[in-house]
């Protein structure tokens, strides 16, 4: 028997029971659609989150002062955490494999130009921040490589601040007041958007040492290290730990590697995607049970036909193929329909709700279709085996 004929016979049997076939197909379609839709959302969220985290580069290690540990002494503990200093940063820069470092100090204050004033984030950063964080300067340049202890009072504006203070006017060379002090604008950053609720566009960048004196801070809030790609983040982190421990005498700092964060994030989101996909899988299972039900009914109804086919020369294998073929065609069409509906809904959702990122990988579509066909196969086997096992003489007499 030719495969084309099996398909044709299966199809004609399904067309003959249009409504029933349609409803069964619908069951599988809903299952596949929900799997595709939910995994699309899961995958979209995952990609979104990873993109958010990696927009400042992946070969980053962050160092913050203080160590999150609980000591066994009760009562008041003398805080002997040493601040992270610019000297620490310069020492770290000498570690082999480290390309660059950025010192960070963050505060809040008013930024004024002419009659306009805006309260915004003030970031005290080293001159290499633009390179390390991969933020482009669209106008002018970033903070110059001045003596880190006596940097000139230059400021670089985030795109939002520039827009609010200067509108369309050229800000370069203008003097603005940052928390009361005079700064000359040397550059404007590209729009980078929000990252975990922190708006990088609504910020101004000034040299670290100036920010320290502005906010009267002894310690940096963070040192970011950019290391050569290809190196293990662990080895670099270990070197950093050793060096800082030898300077500070104790481990009074916390090291966070981007890679670690990404790994944790990736695995958490991966499990999440799997979980929502599994939820969709339940409805797929229900669709599969629908196929078993309908095929069992079909075999019962068509018992005389099965007897006849046996009489005119069909062996058990052919009967099995015919009924499995019907189940697979049902599931296959359902899968195709579900894929269209699922991917379509995901796309429409992504377009209509900007906050909800969706992404349908085409490999998922293939898996979904294979899964549908597999379910058809599994669901078809039981009724088809029953059909093939019927005694031809009894079958042909059945009413």
């Amino acid at each position, binding site marked *: 028997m030719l495969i084309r004929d099996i398909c044709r016979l299966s199809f*004609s049997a399904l067309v003959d029971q249009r409504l029933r076939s349609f409803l069964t197909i619908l069951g599988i379609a809903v299952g596949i659609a929900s799997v595709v839709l939910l995994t699309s959302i899961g995958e979209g969220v995952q990609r979104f989150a990873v993109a958010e985290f990696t927009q400042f580069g992946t070969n980053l290690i962050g160092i913050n002062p203080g160590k999150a540990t609980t000591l066994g002494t009760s009562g008041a503990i003398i805080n002997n955490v040493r601040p992270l200093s610019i000297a620490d940063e310069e020492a770290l820069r000498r570690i082999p494999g480290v390309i660059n470092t950025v010192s960070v100090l963050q505060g809040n204050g008013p930024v004024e130009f002419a009659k306009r004033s805006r309260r915004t984030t003030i970031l005290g950063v080293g001159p290499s921040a633009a390179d390390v964080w991969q933020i482009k300067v669209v106008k002018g340049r970033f903070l110059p490589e001045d003596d880190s202890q006596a940097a000139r009072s230059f400021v670089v504006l985030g795109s939002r601040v520039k827009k609010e203070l200067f509108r369309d006017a050229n800000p370069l060379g203008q003097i603005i007041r940052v928390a009361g002090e005079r700064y000359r604008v040397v550059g404007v950053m590209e729009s980078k958007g929000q990252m975990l609720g922190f708006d990088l566009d609504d910020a101004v960048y000034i040299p670290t040492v100036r920010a320290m004196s502005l906010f009267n801070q002894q310690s940096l809030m963070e040192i970011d290290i950019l290391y050569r790609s290809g190196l293990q983040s662990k080895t670099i982190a270990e070197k950093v730990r050793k060096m800082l421990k030898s300077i500070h005498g104790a481990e009074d700092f916390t090291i966070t590697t981007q890679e670690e964060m990404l790994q944790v994030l990736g695995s958490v989101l991966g499990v999440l995607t799997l979980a929502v996909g599994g939820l969709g899988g339940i409805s797929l299972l229900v669709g599969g049970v629908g196929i078993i039900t309908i095929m069992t009914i079909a075999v019962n109804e068509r018992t005389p036909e099965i007897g*006849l086919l046996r*009489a005119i020369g*069909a062996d058990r294998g052919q009967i099995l193929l015919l009924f499995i073929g019907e189940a697979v065609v049902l599931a296959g069409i359902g899968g195709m329909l579900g894929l269209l509906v699922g991917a379509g809904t995901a796309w429409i959702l992504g377009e209509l709700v900007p906050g909800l990122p969706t992404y349908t990988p085409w490999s998922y579509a293939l898996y979904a279709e294979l899964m549908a066909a597999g379910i058809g196969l599994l669901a078809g086997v039981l009724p088809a085996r029953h059909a093939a096992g019927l005694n031809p*003489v009894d079958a042909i007499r059945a009413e």
Partner: protein
Amino acid sequence: MISLTGISRVFTVGDEQVYGLRDVDLEITTGEYVSIMGPSGSGKSTLLNMIGLLDKADSGRYLLEGEDMTGLDDSRQADLRRHKIGFIFQFFHLVPRMSAAENIELPMILAGLPSSERKKRVQGAIEAFGLTNRARHRPDELSGGQRQRVAIARATIMRPHILLADEPTGNLDRVSGKEVIDILEDLNRQQITLLMVTHDPELGRRAKRQIHMVDGRIESDVAQGPFREKEPKKNHEAN
């Protein structure tokens, strides 16, 4: 051609064992026209199904064209049914969702014949059986006689050697019945062995050889001259 020796078939009904066939011996040669008669439950249909390889004997030997059928597996049996045997039933057993032409094509699909060959043969059969303007009709749009003609076309499309008819006119009026019998007898004249189970004594008498069954046994096996002969010669065959 067909040779049965000591064939028995036992059915288990509840706790009881019922004999469908008891120790049946039968020889049928190519081109014979045999009618099988007897009361209900006498084993006529069981014998027919046995010969048609739809049923298996519990004991005994069945040779079809010299080949032993006793121990054949399912797919070989199906293959022989496809190529050597044609079945015709009282209730036609056409597939209701398929047109007359598609029903006739079905055995060739199972045999895996190429589409062009199938079309050619179907066309020939439709013309031969006078179904030219009914080919696209479904069984429920056909008269009883037309349905049985479709069924005969389907049974003979693979050019079998043996035609097994189980009450082929049992569900037809006299005129259609006569028509169907004429077709079957015409096929028999073309050297197809014809075995026909019937309740109708008048129909049974038309066959050159008449077998009467009672309780799973062959009670009498009478061969007579060409039909229409008024006084049949009692000529018992002992095989």
